[in-house]
């Protein structure tokens, strides 16, 4: 059964239509609260539409940061349209204990699945094709760790962006610091790039001499983005470019050339 409900977003001050599918009804049935929240992202905020197992609307809420639920875990459902760009991942269940959240989404049948955990946080990932299980496991763990560590500043849109990056990177060799990339991306709307003048002056003197290690244009782009949020620097870029820019930003931070300043 598919039904369409009309909801009002108090932040945008306009109505939206939301399609309620059987998947959401099942999620509501399985939820300890008896409802599931359907995620609808509107630029800098997300509208969460709560529906019960019969498909009736049980209220809406606007969130800028990831919701936090105390006591019973809150279940959030990601509509299939947000997963369409994913090439390898077909479904995800992310349990974030620090936020009291279970975030799930699916777009089809899977070839194989894996589950990783870090403390009380868990990630179940289903893929549509096979691959190097060790690499996929390491990337999944890095994603989970990064998202958990950045959860205080994470938003639903940046969480989905991180998922796209995870999807794009699964065949690469993960660095041991891959979790830092995900943490930076989930928190990117609250991270401002700040240039350290003396360090950047020296760094720019030898930047061309390390062009075989780091793409010069990415380093320069991050340096020129000083004063912007990291989200503004990566907005509308493809996932692999976002990964490269995040990796370069972290490389600059390690050298003291920039600060990645957390803002509320």
């Amino acid at each position, binding site marked *: 059964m598919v039904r369409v409900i009309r909801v009002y977003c108090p932040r945008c001050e306009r109505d939206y239509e939301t399609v309620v599918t059987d998947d959401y009804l099942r999620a509501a049935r399985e939820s300890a609260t008896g409802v599931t929240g359907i995620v609808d992202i509107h630029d800098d905020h997300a509208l969460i539409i709560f529906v019960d197992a019969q498909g009736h609307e049980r209220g809406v809420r606007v969130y800028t940061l990831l919701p936090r639920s105390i006591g019973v875990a809150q279940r959030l459902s990601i509509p299939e349209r947000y997963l369409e760009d994913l090439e390898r991942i077909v479904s995800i269940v992310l349990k974030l204990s620090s936020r009291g959240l279970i975030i799930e989404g699916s777009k089809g049948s899977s070839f194989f699945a894996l589950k990783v955990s870090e403390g009380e946080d868990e990630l179940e990932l289903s893929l549509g094709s096979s691959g190097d299980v060790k690499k996929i496991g390491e990337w999944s763990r890095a994603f989970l760790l990064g998202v958990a560590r950045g959860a205080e500043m994470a938003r639903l849109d940046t969480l989905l962006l991180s998922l796209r990056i995870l999807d794009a990177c699964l065949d690469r060799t993960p660095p041991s610091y891959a979790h830092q990339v995900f943490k930076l991306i989930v928190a990117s709307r609250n991270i401002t790039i700040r240039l350290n003048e003396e360090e950047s002056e*020296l760094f720019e003197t030898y930047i061309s001499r390390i062009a075989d290690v780091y793409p010069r244009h990415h380093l320069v782009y991050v340096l020129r983005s000083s004063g912007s949020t990291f989200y503004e620097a990566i907005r509308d870029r493809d996932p692999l470019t976002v990964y490269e820019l995040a990796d370069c930003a972290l490389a600059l931070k390690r050298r003291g050339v920039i600060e990645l300043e957390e803002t509320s």
Partner: protein
Amino acid sequence: MRRLRDFAREDPITLAIKLAYAHLREGLEKAEKRARRLGLEDRVEDAWRVLERIPSAPLVGPPSGDAELVRRAFVYLASRADKLIEVGPRSEGPLRLFAEALMTTTFYSDLIASMVGKVPRGSAVLEVQAGPGVGSQVALTRSGASGVAADQDPTSLEIIEERALRLNLDLRPVLASYNDAPTYVGAPIGVFMAVSPTAWLVDIASLASRAHAALEPGGVFVAIWPVRHREPNPVEPFLRLMGIKRLPEWDELLYQVVHLVGFRRVRTKRIGPFTAIRAQKP
């Protein structure tokens, strides 16, 4: 009193370092207050004392290429004098960026390459106090060998890992002191090197002794150091600031490495204030 023609004989790298002295004087003044608060006044006083013993460079035109990068690297170090007084045996803070800048100069990386030479098949390269890992990069890129880069600073290890991944090098970063590092290498050690400025924080004679114990027969110890050749080395005021009381004297160093430690077939090369040494274990 030195005359202008004496300076004309000085190499461009030495001149470039001396051009940063004006900035170092400003840096030392800035660092004095902080040093007093931390009880580290002796470091700043020591740096002043050595600085006053080294003749300044005359006004010369702006350097170019490698010399200009060297000048800027030392100007940067001078601007961070207040942070340098707190640098410990880890390759941390301003020293990390300085090390990478200096080591990416052509003369410095060529010096590393010429000293390392060929790595015997089946042998590994070990770089200790590796800092940003440029030494390992140079050695492994040219030889195709595998290696381990050790440092005690986790951030430096992440920089080394970036390099290894992006350049597809068979290089493993490990968190270890130069003493413990050899235990992390799974193959006979053919090259034991300490070529990053971050290595200057430790005693070269102890390093040579550890290298001799860790190397396979025929293996080589490679180090690049600001050695003293009877008079103060131009790099010395910067190092005094980091608490390095004394730089190795050239004759003394050779005696220690060759006679006391037991290396043979010692080869050296000097560029400006930097002396490279290559010594083979019999």
